[in-house]
């Protein structure tokens, strides 16, 4: 039964997956380094178990019928076996149950992810503190703006470990998606709709991020690094940037907005204009001296905490 063996092989591969995860930290999604990624990881493992079960049932039946009835003169041939209500109900009910078992944690996780993760940083005075970073995707780079620290970085961001970080996501031109697999799942960036993504790193370390939504020529190089540091290192880094890095001039900022790939950089300040989170069309209107009025996607509130920006002009509300 050569054919059977080759058919089973992929299944074995899939079943072996949870085992492999133990020994390789290269599988980023299965190597969660923060609470958000971890809750998704639990969901993934749970679904893998259920799915392995389904696959196992199908494979066992498959192998059985082929082995038993695949021979030239197998016994038990019965052309009148054309249906069986009871059996059919069984294989309707079991998938229903499996779907319920998958749907419940799915919906729970979905709602849970709307809230910031619990801070784990010590000392205790850090608890309850969050950090906000405004992220802008530009063809083909990532701009990170720290509205509270008033600094800006390109293609990398430093965050305090153990502290929930709220990334507010915008796009200047094409859609992209902001993904740091070890810290948690992705969100799109869009020109007309600011979105948010809570992430948190358990411990200091560097985590690779990349755009996961295709945006043109330089898309493959649209990578960044999220560097988690402990609280004091983070503060030191902020001070260092403030003191030792150049300011981002208006011209420099506009240059960054041109489609191109660039190296990681940091700036001790950013121009006022950057705060407005203009998209490409608004920027062009501004340059041409026209009004920058544009409509954002009204009503698409991700939750009550986040007010949408109805006229598309700066003005963030902090919660």
């Amino acid at each position, binding site marked *: 039964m050569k054919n059977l063996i080759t058919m089973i092989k992929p299944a074995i591969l899939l079943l072996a997956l949870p085992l492999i995860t133990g020994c390789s930290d290269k599988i980023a999604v299965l190597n969660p380094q923060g609470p958000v990624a971890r809750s998704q990881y639990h969901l993934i493992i749970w679904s893998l178990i259920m799915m392995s079960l389904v696959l196992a049932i199908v494979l066992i039946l498959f192998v059985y019928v082929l082995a038993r009835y695949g021979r030239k003169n197998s016994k038990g041939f019965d052309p009148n076996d054309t249906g069986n209500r009871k059996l059919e109900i069984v294989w309707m009910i079991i998938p229903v149950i499996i779907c319920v078992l998958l749907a419940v944690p799915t919906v729970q996780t979905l709602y849970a992810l709307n809230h910031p993760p619990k801070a784990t940083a010590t000392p205790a005075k850090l608890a309850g503190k969050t950090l906000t970073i405004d992220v802008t995707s530009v063809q083909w780079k990532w701009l990170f703006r720290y509205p509270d620290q008033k600094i800006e970085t390109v293609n990398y961001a430093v965050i305090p470990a153990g502290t929930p970080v709220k990334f507010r996501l915008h796009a200047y031109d094409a859609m992209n998606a902001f993904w740091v697999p070890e810290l948690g799942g992705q969100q799109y960036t869009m020109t007309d709709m600011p979105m948010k993504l809570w992430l948190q790193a358990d411990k200091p370390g560097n985590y690779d991020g990349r755009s996961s939504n295709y945006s043109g020529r330089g898309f493959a190089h649209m990578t960044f690094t999220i560097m988690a540091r402990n609280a004091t290192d983070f503060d030191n880094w902020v001070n260092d940037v403030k003191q030792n890095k150049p300011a981002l001039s208006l011209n420099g900022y506009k240059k960054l907005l041109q489609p191109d790939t660039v190296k990681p950089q940091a700036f001790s300040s950013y121009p006022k204009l950057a705060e407005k989170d203009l998209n490409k069309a608004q920027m062009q209107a501004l340059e041409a001296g026209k009004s920058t009025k544009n409509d954002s*996607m*009204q*009503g*698409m509130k991700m939750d009550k905490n986040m007010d949408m920006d109805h006229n598309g002009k700066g003005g963030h509300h902090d919660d």
Partner: protein
Amino acid sequence: MSENQNQVMKQEHAGFPWKQVIGLVLSLALTFLALWIAVGLSLPVHVTLTIIVGLAIFQAFIQLFMFMHVTEGTEPVHQVIGILFGIYVAFAVVAGTIWILAYTI
């Protein structure tokens, strides 16, 4: 003898086009009613929207039955199911799009 065949007979021989006239009068009445509710009254927006959409659907069914004879033909069940499925999908695309992209209007 089914109801529809009777209708066909009636239409072919009756003198006055009652069905058409009633259809017209009803549509005009409903149109003006909707206009009055929308512009003349000042009910809460959601109430107004619900009522006028309801009226529009009612009027669409008048056209469908009074003028278009959906239930006529050799096997009208086919076109009735077709239209119903069309309504289902059209509803999905309109309601879904609004829900996803602009549910507060």
